[in-house]
């Protein structure tokens, strides 16, 4: 049965020794929404995301991603999600086409579909003429757009984006977000972390993580109303001020 929630998490906790990185979080992400996962550095976002993507085993609590159990079916989860991080994008010494073929292979895109999907993808990014350029020679903005397209080449149900636009100028960031919109329009769910509060406004719903817990979760509009704030940045400040954890 296909659930309307692509991510469901109940009482998820991760401890490292005495330190509780993620402290009893429960939330769900609806199919087809852009879910913003916000929080200060060290609030536990990365740890939570690792559990959701099947890279880390929760200490307690349970959850499903794309209908699969994060405790027992992490291999299946990996087949149904896409992942893109600002830190690792693509192999700079390979050409655009090499990278696309590689990742299509890794994600198990059927052989006979690969060429068509790659051409389609490059066409959409208007990058067909750069097919044989090495990735490292491309401008940063293009690289990131390409990396995102690669992360959804296998048409995953959900794509995790970890600070995808860090250090990118306003114009390039906007082009990037239009790609996210497009993907979501096609039915992919986007799970995004960002430090840009204007980007938080693009999300359907956002969660704010403080000291390992989710302190607020709602649509940007509702959050602003609830905290009497003019912008999400203000909401963030109000919540972050309550943080005990300094790291």
């Amino acid at each position, binding site marked *: 049965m296909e659930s309307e929630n692509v991510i469901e998490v109940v009482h998820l906790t991760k401890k490292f020794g005495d330190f509780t990185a993620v402290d009893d979080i429960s939330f769900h992400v609806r199919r087809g929404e852009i879910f913003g996962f916000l929080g200060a*550095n060290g609030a536990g976002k990365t740890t939570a995301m690792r559990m959701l993507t099947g890279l880390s085993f929760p200490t307690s609590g349970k959850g499903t991603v794309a209908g699969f159990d994060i405790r027992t079916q992490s291999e299946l989860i990996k087949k149904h999600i896409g992942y893109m991080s600002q830190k690792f994008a693509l192999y700079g010494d390979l050409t655009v086409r090499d990278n696309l073929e590689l990742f299509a292979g890794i994600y198990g895109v059927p052989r006979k579909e690969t060429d068509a999907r790659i051409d389609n993808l490059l066409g959409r990014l208007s990058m067909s003429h750069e097919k044989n350029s090495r990735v490292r020679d491309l401008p940063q903005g293009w690289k990131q757009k390409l990396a995102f397209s690669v992360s959804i080449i296998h048409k995953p149900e959900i794509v995790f984006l970890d600070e995808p636009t860090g250090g990118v100028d*306003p114009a390039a960031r906007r082009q990037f977000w239009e790609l996210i919109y497009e993907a979501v329009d096609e039915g992919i769910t986007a799970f995004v972390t960002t430090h840009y509060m204007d980007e938080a406004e693009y999300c359907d719903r956002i969660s704010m993580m403080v000291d390992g817990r989710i302190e607020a979760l709602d649509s940007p509009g509702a959050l602003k109303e609830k905290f009497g704030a003019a912008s999400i940045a203000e909401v963030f400040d109000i919540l972050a001020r309550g943080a005990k954890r300094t790291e």
Partner: protein
Amino acid sequence: MDSIVIHSLKKTYGKGQPPAVDIRGDLCISKGELFGIIGPDGAGKTTLFRMLATLVSPDSGTAVLEGYDVMADYRKIRTILGYMPGRFSLYSDLSVRENLEFFASVFGKDLESNYGLIENIYCRLKPFERRKAGKLSGGMKQKLALCCSLIHSPSILFLDEPTTGVDPSSRRELWENLAQLKASGMTIVVSTAYMDEACRCDRVGMMKSGRFLTVDSPERIISGFDRRLVSVKSDEMFRLLHDLRGIGDVDRCYTFGETHHLTLKPGSRMTVREIGSVLAGKYGHKGVSVAETDATLEDCYMNLEEKL
């Protein structure tokens, strides 16, 4: 009094490549000024920093910092300059305090006599003095890096994208620190991808393809915005973006937080009400709200960026 004077700097890496930096004419940054540099990746910001920090020799042109020439007097400059490169990550296997002590002694200073300048920043790090720098969070690392670049009380401070990957609260703290340093008379040049940060600068230089497109105070850049700017909202934001681009009078349309901003083509007489009715009528949008709005620095960037 000018702290930094740039005379037509040019630097090209490798034959056949376009110049990384190609600044024509003079640019002066006065003492105690907080100067921001914004621009897309590859605009030449880092190369410019490296030339001013005497790490890279310009092909032609020159720059003078506090009266010292970047080529002839580079040793002098290195004693008065604080520099925090973009990917500076400190020594992750050394503790917070060991890092700081090391950088103090590199500059021939001891920690105690120069503690005053960094006290405000360092007080947040003090509880973690013995922790390895590699175990600090992004915001904390940047604070420590800033302390290390300030430990010798430089008269000029260069920061290359200090807030990338840093959360909003830590970013604000860092800028509060910079404001204090500026107040003490330090000349600060900082590059950033955040327009709200650029707004805190005395002057901002917008850089692209190695050149400054414009250099002015944020207020003057904003007041120089000569287009009609409209902010639009509806229940279907993504479709709205495409639909707005389909309207003939719309020059440029881009997302802007919870709304979309659009500029109208020069000479367009389309009113806000007309835009609203086109959206509600022809395109069937619901919950449409359209209003003229004042430009921000980000709008200026978006429209300036388009020009090249």
